[in-house]
């Protein structure tokens, strides 16, 4: 496939692996921030091919995983109401709330629809003026421009039956929080390429400098990831802590200005709770006061919902890179993609789901030739 095959080329991958092996002199812990990268690493077996000095730990960059249980319960509450069309990206439909998921609400008669873009939800609202149409706005900076644009369009077109349940989260504050934790093991980051496509990478410079940690903006194909790891290893071995851009074919230093502009027009930065980890200051987006009428939490007067996570679930520790999925007593036993205890198992980008689908065990459970 044009523009993709070269980033999956086994010869280039082998060459990069050899270069990593030649560059490394001691053990290093590198975190890939994004769930998409975790998925690509496990799916391609990259972790098995790397020299043993490199430990990859999996970061909090799965939007489904970090959406708080309370927010999912709010989504379920709204979706269960009559005269509501509840729209969401596909990933969120199977994520369990404290009692059920959106698919179950659908099977009970709720009008739950999967959309590919929040702009489609606005179209549905236009076509169904007698219904309240709600979009579940989850995700990182990657999806924020589209959700902002949906609100902006609804505003411009005077569509009053549209609202959003907003649970956007921001990556840099989470990285800062991880680095500031006394338990931190992360020595270098592979930053999430898609997020940087929107936001650029300027905001990572102070983090790299303050915490003396290399940050390499990295893409999602095997060759991207191996090259990102090589760049991180070279920095670690040289004692440098800079922001480097492996994903330069897509990511610009200043990001995507029109996208950032629409985000700023509609959203403001707010404190946000991350599922399994806790609240980080200034780590999310909320609607600005002038767009308050599009806030589904207010429109449906939901109030506060308090719920308990299953005590045996260690999703939070996994999202912080402190535990691996196979270190959980329930992994593959009570907790499977069919019966998930936590979101890291149910989300297609979750670390537990990736390990369950592709590896199952600590070491190569797949017998080799």
């Amino acid at each position, binding site marked *: *496939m*044009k523009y*993709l095959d070269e980033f*999956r080329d*086994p010869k280039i*991958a*082998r060459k990069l692996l050899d270069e990593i092996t030649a560059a490394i002199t001691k053990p290093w812990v590198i975190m890939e921030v994004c769930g*998409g990268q975790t998925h690509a690493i*496990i*799916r*391609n*077996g*990259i*972790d*098995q*091919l790397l020299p043993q000095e490199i430990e990859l730990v999996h970061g909090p960059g799965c*939007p*489904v995983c970090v959406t708080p249980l309370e927010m999912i319960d709010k989504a379920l509450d709204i979706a269960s109401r009559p005269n509501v069309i509840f729209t969401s*990206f*596909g*990933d*969120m*439909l*199977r994520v369990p709330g404290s009692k059920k998921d959106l*698919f*179950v609400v*659908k*099977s*009970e008669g709720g009008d739950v629809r*999967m959309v*590919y873009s929040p702009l489609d939800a606005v179209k549905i609202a236009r076509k169904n003026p007698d219904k309240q149409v709600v979009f579940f706005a*989850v*995700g*990182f900076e*990657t*999806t924020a421009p589209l959700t902002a644009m949906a609100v902006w369009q609804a505003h411009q077109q005077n569509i009053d039956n549209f609202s959003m349940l907003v649970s956007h989260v921001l990556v840099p504050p989470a990285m800062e929080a991880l680095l500031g934790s006394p338990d931190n093991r992360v020595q270098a980051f592979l930053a999430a390429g*898609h997020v940087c496509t929107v936001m650029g990478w300027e905001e990572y410079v102070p983090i790299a400098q303050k915490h003396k940690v290399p940050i390499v903006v990295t893409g999602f194909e*095997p060759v991207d990831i191996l090259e990102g790891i090589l760049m991180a290893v070279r920095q670690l071995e040289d004692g440098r802590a800079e922001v480097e851009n492996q994903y330069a074919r897509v990511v610009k230093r200043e990001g995507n200005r029109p996208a950032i502009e629409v985000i700023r027009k509609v959203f403001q930065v707010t404190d946000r709770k991350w599922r399994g980890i806790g609240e980080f200051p200034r780590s999310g987006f909320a609607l600005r006061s002038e767009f308050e009428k599009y806030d589904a939490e207010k429109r449906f007067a939901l109030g506060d919902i308090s719920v308990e996570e299953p005590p045996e679930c260690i999703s939070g520790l996994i999202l912080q890179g402190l535990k691996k999925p196979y270190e959980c007593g329930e992994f593959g036993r009570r907790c499977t*993609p*069919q*019966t998930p205890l936590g979101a890291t198992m149910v989300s*297609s*980008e979750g670390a537990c789901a990736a390990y*369950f*689908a*592709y*590896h*199952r065990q600590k070491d*190569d*459970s*797949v*017998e*080799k030739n």
Partner: protein
Amino acid sequence: MGKTIKPEDLKCPLPITGHDTIQLSHGSGGRMSNELISKLFVWAFDNPALRKQDDQAVVEVNGLKLSFTTDSFVVDPIFFPGGDIGDLAVNGTVNDICMNGATPLYLSAGFIIEEGFPLKDLQAIVISMKRAASEAGVQIVTGDTKVVNKGKGDKIFINTAGIGLIEHGYDISSSNLKAGDAIILSGTIADHGIAVMSKRENLSFETPITSDTASLNRLVAEIVRVGGVHAMRDPTRGGVAATLNEFAMASHVGIRIHEDRIPVKPAVAGACEILGLDPLYVANEGKLVAVVSPDKAEAVLAAMKKHSLGVDAVIIGEVVSGQSGMVSMTTRIGGQRIVDMPVGEQLPRIC
């Protein structure tokens, strides 16, 4: 007089986990479908033919070996690039009949039509079925029509059942895989699923993607003529991944495939990238996976390549010992991973 079965006798020995009500995923061809079938239907209707859990049952009538199957078609949209619900209903059942090497003979067609459905659409569907039946060499000999109230059905559902005659002496079943067997795929994967999805979601691609819907019975006849075939299946819902997992579980063997050998059309691969879908899990309607003894593998491959529906056929892997029930894959860059049974429908990712 037979024993009366009381309701309390009908307690499943193994609970169906996860849900109290039927979910869409129970019909997806993945792990949840599999569990529902095994733990409810097979348990309740238990008999040796059903227990094999092939896509068709082999039954004997007066010394004749018959292949018998049924399938229901609920596709949305009903007209899609490369086909419609009508040819799908014929081809799907013809393919299920013949995956044990049978010659398909007769089909039934049952229609459940929603009140208000346009007659011209029904005519188009029926003509499409007539054409597909003619191409496959089968006759539609009986049927049924029900009309349900507006809103009580989704436009049109079609059920087809069919029988075929088994004249060869082989035992072709998903439980017959042996270590060393070659896994042969008849062509590119994921065409049908992506064609339907792109029409359903109004996604357009530079290169049009069309369904691969086709009757495979003549290709199957070529394979059976060469011999050495242990199992065959058309990888419909759940895709090639589900089919290989079903083979591995039914035969208690391992299967290893090689990512770089799996043919995917560039436009389909691009669509899967955009949507975040793995083509291994996407539905096909005109492809088959054949498991063939190693000494016959090249000859079967050559025979398939001579047929128009098998020109892109390729050996994608082999049956291995020591990994009972597991499908693994050597990735393009040389890593190893499991190819798991899908849980339910694949869901497009957020970003």
